[in-house]
């Protein structure tokens, strides 16, 4: 009978809140974005760029999905999802009006506030652009607080490039470096071909005054980190967002451990020096 006091709100720890899909966007053949608003009215929960939610498809399952919208716009919660398995497949089939469960927001965030005053380098691979978009929005909203802002984005093919319209718009901004590359070009692709880590060499940012935010497949992040370090960016200035199996998002299920870290609550965003050695160990 010596239990610890239950912090307020914990009673809801496992219980998803119903959110209604207000709008569905078909981003790519297998990728879509959902705008979610609380089914019972009220304001969507507040979050910080880089955080994620657990999205629940009734009776089917719950999956961690990053929040890909603007943290300061106060609008619906936006999630960009790639259909890869049963739950995400089921979500792809949903239309506006359908209801999903939401638990969150969870996890650490991109250090966008801390990065103010510095150059900002954003490196994304594939659907990894989604968790970075809130950081981009922040940088655009507060453009004057940053030095150079570079967005390096790579995808497998031109058809796999996310947010094409926005990319185009961002590229039009005079004070933004937007560099896009694909692994395999199609015949009508006029842009770069090659791995995204190569872009790190360009961009004209000052490595000594740079914060880099990286999200993509784990190998890609390892190479990107190596390239950034090679250019002279400090370990403390490089941030990665990791993916591990997650069944709870609150450090209770044990699945997402990486050495001492719970990726769900200590991450998903880590500073490189926190995880560099761990990522180098096979099968950790």
């Amino acid at each position: 009978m010596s239990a610890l006091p239950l912090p307020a709100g914990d009673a809801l720890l496992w219980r998803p809140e119903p959110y209604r899909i207000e709008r569905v966007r078909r981003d790519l053949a297998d990728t879509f974005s959902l705008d979610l608003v609380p089914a019972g009215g009220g304001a969507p929960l507040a979050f910080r760029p880089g955080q994620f939610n657990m999205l629940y498809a009734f009776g089917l399952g719950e999956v961690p999905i990053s929040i890909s919208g603007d943290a300061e716009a106060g609008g619906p919660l936006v999630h960009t999802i790639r259909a890869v398995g049963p739950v995400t497949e089921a979500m792809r089939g949903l239309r506006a009006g359908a209801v999903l469960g939401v638990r969150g927001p969870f996890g650490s965030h991109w250090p966008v506030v801390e990065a103010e005053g510095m150059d900002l380098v954003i490196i994304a691979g594939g659907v990894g652009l989604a968790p970075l978009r809130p950081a981009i929005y922040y940088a655009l909203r507060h453009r004057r607080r940053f030095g150079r802002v570079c967005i390096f984005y790579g995808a497998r093919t031109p058809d796999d490039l996310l947010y094409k319209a926005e990319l185009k718009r961002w590229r039009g901004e005079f004070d933004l470096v937007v560099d896009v590359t694909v692994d395999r070009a199609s015949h009508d692709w006029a842009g770069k071909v090659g791995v995204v880590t190569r872009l790190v060499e360009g961009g004209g940012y000052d490595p000594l005054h740079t914060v880099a935010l990286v999200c993509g497949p784990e190998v890609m992040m390892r190479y990107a980190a190596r390239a950034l370090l090679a250019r002279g960016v400090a370990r403390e200035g490089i941030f990665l967002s990791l993916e591990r199996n997650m069944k709870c998002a609150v450090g209770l299920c044990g699945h997402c451990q990486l050495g001492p870290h719970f990726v769900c609550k200590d991450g998903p965003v880590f500073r490189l020096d926190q995880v560099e050695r761990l990522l180098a160990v096979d099968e950790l």
Partner: protein
Amino acid sequence: MNTRSARNAQAPRRPRLAVWKFASCDGCQLSLLDCEDELLAVAEAVELAYFPEATSTVLPGPYDISLVEGSITTPHDRERIQQVRRQSKRLVTIGACATSGGIQALRNGRDVTEFARIVYARPEYIDTLATSTPIAAHVRVDHELRGCPIDKGQLLATLAALLHGRRPPLPSHSVCEACKRAGHVCVMVAHGTPCLGPVTQTGCGALCPGCARGCYGCFGPKETPNTAALSAHLAALGMDDAARRRLYQTFNAGAEAFRKAGDA
């Protein structure tokens, strides 16, 4: 006939379920009829399009879900399974026969040449193959329900999952974990009774340890089974090579890990 068309009319797009039988004892498909509480609900959720053990209705394919029982032991069945696959959107094998060749795979250890020679000397039996092989050795299989027989809870959960697009809950870890969750006392540690639980896939509900006997492996090998380590321990418990071979090679004699562990 009237009733059937009435059923069709009220829910014209129910998924079609087919149940196929190859060499087997029928126990696994009987598991579906043993779902007494759920049988009528299942029959409402799906259209029983082909299930000779239960109905004389035969509706044409394609079938949304095919449950396949039994192993391939005849040339005719080797052809038939191809047809089944072609007609099936999801093919789910049910039971040890279908997933590893079953107990009849005990023939596989024989000298195949000798076996064949005798078979050819008896033309009326040319219909029998020298081996009993699992369905997956012949066609692509979407999901596997292990067990001799299958667990009807897993069967229902799998049907429900497939109907609603969930991943069928078919964990591949050891029987030991289920044994501990159930609160059974480990027969190997506490009684010195040989048990295949540590290398056998969960799903049965740890029935044998629940009856204070060792697991006899009817759910086949778990993921990455360390049979070498278990065999060393079985020897330490006093089991000789012949007994160990028989222990591994009974209901899933054709499963690679158990076959090797028995032969080792």
